[in-house]
C-alpha cells in the first residue's frame, strides 16, 4: 500500500511538473492582459526544439532549445496580437495549429515518417540528501529530475517579480487598466510582448520537460492538450503563480490516479477521472462568478 502511495505521489509530481511550468507561463501572460490559447503550440514547439538541440548537444542544451522554440512561437503570436491588435483567441488557435502542424511535418521530414523512434539523452532523478529518505513522501517528492525543483524555484521567482518589484506592478497594471498604465508612463506594448514571450518560453520548457525528463523521445502531437490544461489551471489557480503550481498538482493527481487504479487492479473508468479537473475548473469559475480573479483587461486589444 505504501509503495503504491509513493508511486502515486511520484507520478503526481512528475505529471504536474510540465503542467506547472506551462501554467506559470500562461499566468504571466494573462496577468499582462493577454490570453494565449496558442500555448499548446508553444509546448509542442518546445518539445521539438528540445529534441533537435539535445540530439546535437546534450540534455542541458536541450532545455535551452525548448525555451527558445516556445519563445519563438510566442513572439509570432505577440507580434500579431500586441503589435497589430488581432483577435487573441483566433490568433492563438492558429498558433496551436501552426505548432502541431509544423513540428509534425518537420519531424517526418527530418527523421523519416513513422521511422524508428529517435531517442535523446534524458536527465535522471536527483535525490536530495536527507529529505529523500523520509518514508513514503521522500522518494516521491525529493527524488525528481532537476527540472521539478527548477519549476518550484520559478514559481517563487514569478511570485516575487509580480508582487514585489516595479516591473511586476507595471505588468499587473497593464492587465487591469492598460490605458491608465500607459498614461502613467508604462511601455504597454513592450511589456505585454515581453510577458507573452516569457510565458511562451515557459510553455516551451514544459514541452522540453516531456522530452528530456520523461519520454526521451518526440512523437507527433505529444503535447496532448497540455497547453489547454494549463489554461484551465490558470483559472483554477486564480491567476496566481502558487495557485498555478497547486492547480497543476490537482490535474497531476487526476492523471496519476489511473496508475494507482491499475496498480490496485481496480477496473474504474479512469477517463472520467481525467475529465474531473476540467469540470472542477468550470465549477470553480461558476462559484467565483465568472471572471473570478481574472485581470480586467484580459483578452482585450489595446485601443
Amino acid at each position, binding site marked *: 500500500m505504501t509503495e503504491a502511495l509513493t508511486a502515486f505521489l511520484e507520478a503526481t509530481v512528475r505529471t504536474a511538473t510540465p503542467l506547472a511550468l506551462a501554467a506559470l507561463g500562461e499566468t504571466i501572460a494573462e496577468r499582462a492582459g493577454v490570453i494565449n490559447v496558442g500555448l499548446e503550440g508553444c509546448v509542442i514547439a518546445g518539445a521539438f526544439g528540445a529534441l533537435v538541440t539535445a540530439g546535437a548537444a546534450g540534455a542541458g542544451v536541450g532545455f535551452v532549445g525548448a525555451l527558445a522554440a516556445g519563445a519563438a512561437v510566442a513572439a509570432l503570436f505577440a507580434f500579431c496580437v500586441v503589435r497589430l491588435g488581432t483577435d487573441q483567441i483566433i490568433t492563438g488557435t492558429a498558433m496551436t495549429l501552426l505548432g502541431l502542424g509544423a513540428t509534425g511535418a518537420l519531424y517526418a521530414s527530418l527523421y523519416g515518417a513513422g521511422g524508428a523512434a529517435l531517442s535523446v539523452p534524458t536527465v535522471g532523478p536527483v535525490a536530495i540528501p536527507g529529505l529523500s529518505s523520509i518514508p513514503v513522501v521522500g522518494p516521491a517528492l525529493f527524488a525528481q529530475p532537476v527540472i521539478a525543483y527548477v519549476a518550484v524555484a520559478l514559481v517563487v521567482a514569478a511570485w516575487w517579480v509580480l508582487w514585489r518589484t516595479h516591473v511586476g506592478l507595471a505588468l499587473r497594471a497593464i492587465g487591469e487598466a492598460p490605458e491608465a498604465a500607459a498614461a502613467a508612463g508604462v511601455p504597454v506594448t513592450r511589456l505585454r510582448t515581453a510577458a507573452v514571450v516569457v510565458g511562451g518560453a515557459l510553455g516551451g520548457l514544459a514541452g522540453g520537460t516531456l522530452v528530456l525528463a520523461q519520454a526521451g523521445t518526440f512523437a507527433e502531437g505529444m503535447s496532448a492538450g497540455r497547453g489547454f490544461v494549463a489554461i484551465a489551471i490558470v483559472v483554477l489557480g486564480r491567476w496566481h503563480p502558487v495557485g498555478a503550481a497547486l492547480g497543476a498538482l490537482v490535474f497531476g493527481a487526476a492523471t496519476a490516479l489511473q496508475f494507482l487504479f491499475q496498480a490496485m487492479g481496480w477496473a474504474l473508468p479512469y477517463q472520467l477521472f481525467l475529465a474531473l479537473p476540467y469540470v472542477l475548473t468550470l465549477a470553480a*469559475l461558476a462559484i467565483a462568478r465568472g471572471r473570478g480573479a481574472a485581470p480586467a483587461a484580459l483578452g482585450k486589444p489595446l485601443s
Partner: protein
Amino acid sequence: MRATTLRLALVGVTAAVAAALLLAIVAAAGHDAPRALAALGRGAFGSWDAVLSGTLLRATPLVLAGLAVTLAFRAGVLNIGAEGQLLAGAAAATAAALAVPAAGPWPLMTALLAGIAGGAAIAGVAAWLRARFGVLDVISTLMLNAVVQYTVAWLVRGPLQEPTRIYPQSPTLDAAARLPVLVPGSRLHVGWAVAVLLAIAGSWWLARTAAGFRLRATGMSPGAAASAGRIDVPKVTAWAFVGSGALAGLAGAVEVTGVTYALYENLSPGYGFTAIAVALLAGLEPALVIATGLVFGALEAGAAAMQRDAGVPAVLVSVVEALLIVLLVVAERGRQAGWFRSGTIGGERA
C-alpha cells in the same frame, strides 16, 4: 452583391495562396514539388471519384461546423468548442442509432436528432455558464472540449464498446441508421446536400428575418442592440450559442451516419478547429461557407493524396491553415484600422 463577388475573389486568391504556401514549404523541406503538386491536384480534382469521395466528402463536416462557428461569431459568441460539440453529436447519434430497433426511417432520424441535441446540450452548458455566471466563452468551451473527449474515450471502452470488447470503438451502425448515398458509385452521402441547403437557408435567415437581424445587431454592438433596438441581448446570445452547438452536433452525427458508421476517439481530425478558418475566410457569410468549406475540403483531400503518392506529410495542411488564419485576421484588423484605405481592399468598406 458586390461584397459577395469581392469575397469570392478573396476566397479564390486565398486558395491559390494556400496552395502556393503548401508547395513552398514542401519544396523548402526538400520534397519533389512538381510531383507533390500533381498529387495534390489528383487527390482533390483528378477524377469524379476524387471530387465526390475526396473533396466533397471532406467538405461536408467542414461546411456544417463552419456554419456553427459562423452563427456563434456573428452573435459575438467566441465558441471555439465546435470540436467538442461535434464529438458530442457523434456520440449521441451513435448511442441513439444503437438503441432504436433497426426498421424504417426511424434509426437514422433519431440518430441525427440526437446528434443535434448532443451538440446543443454541450453548447448549452457553456451558454448557461456565460449567462448565469459570466464565464468566458473561450475558457468554458475549451474545458468542455476536454470533458467530451474523455467522455467519448470512456464510452468507446465502456457502455458503447463493440461486442468483442477488443477495439476502442462502438459497434458498426445498421444500414437503416446510415445516410443514403447521394451519387451512386461514390462515397458521397446526402449530408453534403443538407450542408449546402442549410448554408443557403442560413444566409437567407440572417439577412431577411427579424431574428437574423437581432442576431447581427447583437454581434455588432450588444450595447446599441439593447438600448436602441430593445433586443434581449442575453437571450439572443444564448440561443446563438445553443444553435451553434446544434449545427456542430449535426456535423458529428452526419460524419458518423455518413462516413465512419462507428464512434471512435479520433473521429474528427480537428474539423471543429478547421471550421474556424472556414468561417473566417467566408467573412462569416453562411452561403460563402460552402465555397470555403470546398477549399479546405480540397486541400485536405489533396494533402492525403500527397502523403500517399509523394511522401509529403499531410499534417502540413495544418501549417497552411494556421498561416491562412493569421493572414486573414491581420487583413481584417488592417481593414478595421484603415491600413489599406487608399488601396483596393478598403473598397469593401463602402
